[in-house]
């Protein structure tokens, strides 16, 4: 699967799709797991005071983290961010997180917006650069997904 049309120069990794979709945005690797409920406000800003990326915006970013953490209300917060257009462009996770997958599934059912969620390995996560534009293309769940990070 290509990264949506035009050839992009950069490093490509292949992960496992948890939810289909395609998205492009600036990469935002998180230094710790993030709970969307209690951790991200309705504008898409990280408001968890304990979190290293406190104050950053997730909107339109390709958010990479080890896992979703904490509250099971994160599904509703994520679905609402997708509905309001303030969601990440894509999520990259090491641990398949059913709560975040459900948020993406419901938003796709209700609003027709399919935000990709991709499982990556711990090595792939730690090997990501600190920023740069990332293109994510994920097929049906359990199938392959590609993440291409452009060279600056």
């Amino acid at each position, binding site marked *: 699967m290509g990264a949506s049309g035009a050839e992009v120069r950069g490093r490509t990794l292949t992960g496992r799709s948890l939810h289909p979709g395609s998205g492009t945005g600036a990469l935002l690797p998180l230094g710790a797991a993030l709970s969307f409920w209690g951790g991200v406000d309705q504008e898409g800003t990280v408001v968890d005071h304990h979190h290293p990326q406190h104050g950053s915006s997730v909107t339109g970013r390709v958010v990479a983290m080890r896992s979703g953490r904490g509250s099971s209300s994160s599904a509703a917060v994520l*679905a609402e961010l997708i509905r309001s257009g303030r969601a990440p462009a894509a999520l990259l996770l090491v641990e398949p997180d059913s709560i975040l997958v459900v948020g993406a599934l419901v938003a796709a059912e*209700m609003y027709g917006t399919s935000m990709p969620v991709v499982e990556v390995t711990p090595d792939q996560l730690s090997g990501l650069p600190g920023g740069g534009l990332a293109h994510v293309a994920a097929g049906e769940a359990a199938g392959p997904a590609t993440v291409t990070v452009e060279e600056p």
Partner: protein
Amino acid sequence: MAPALPLLTAEEQGMLAGDAGPATALGMRLVVGVARATGAERLVEVASAHGDGCLYHGAAGLEFTERLVEFGGRVRVRTTLNVGSLDLLHPGTVRADAALDTNARRLMDAHVALGCEPTWSCAPYQAGHRPSIGSHVAWAESNAIAFVNSVLGARTDRYGDFLDLAAAITGRVPFAGLHQDEGRRAELVLDLSGVPGELLDHDAAWPAVGALLGDLAGTRVAALVGLPGDLTDGGTTEDRLKALGATAASTGGVALFHVIGVTPEASTLGAVARSGAPVIPVTAADLRAARDRLSTVTEGRLDAVSLGTPHFSVAEFAALASALAGGPAFARSLTVYVSTSRAVLEQARALGYADTVEGAGARIVTDTCTYVTPVLDPGVRTVMTNSGKWAWYAPANLGIDTVLGSLPECVASARAGEVVRDGRLWG
């Protein structure tokens, strides 16, 4: 080519195809979507559900729930409900604007229309919903998940908004994660035998243990050894495990912990721990550091005290009423809130505890909680709580400072109008 997973029974295929109506089909698409993502090979039937989608987070949750109602959806299994955004028994407690008031009520009504029980509590396990050991259930709300898995020994994975209702309507969840024996094994062991007994007899030690557990375990299953007594002798009580689990689910993503010799699956360490699981010794200093991370201030004037997160139990009401009996009322410069379920409040009223607590000046909040919806006065800046979960989330949710203390410390502080804590036990 291998068949696509999960493998569905004929009945489940029918549900997906719409034979049981469009609400069941929508629910099944979500359950199957998650099963694919998590790699589950099949689904499993559940005996009950606890839903937490009744707290208003925005239009998406309301529109989803009302769509299920429009589709004629009905839960197939007993389904209790978590807190909503309103206190329906005490109008005026929540300072909701007109939009929140309308939307929050619509969301709660839509859940009841699906056949869910209006329990409105994050501690359904202390309000009459106690699944049997080994039964498969679909519970949402991180503290309730930790409690039902750990303390009751029923089996749920981490469910949240949407999937809770999908499971309740289809009666199915993916057979994965904590539903399977393999997923319930402890990957690490916390040894608390080096912590002085006097400290573990201090209520505030338990959210501190939870905070440390969350830090060390993350989302992994852990076992704890060296905690005192058992569930019936006043040592490792249900309320202490409730506080521990709620905090561990907040600071980490803990959904199951085993207390060796106490919780139902954990007769011995060998019965629950993976061989070679690392053993981490815990000291009083570790617990002090964990406690300190649950406070943004340590002293000074208080504007409020918040108790009952997760919802206060009858036993906690008894302890609070006992601490208040014959003593002075709370300082008039602050407000004391006690959050509980309507089921527990009914018992606390019958037993006289609620009158004692209100007589001292406390406000009892039901159906919701003081950190998820506007309850505290706008001028509140500093709040003491006995809850590690409240202390963890309130600074971000409410923009306030918090300080953690035991129930007796909260009572002493509420009387003094400022923080009163006994630091001697913490080493």
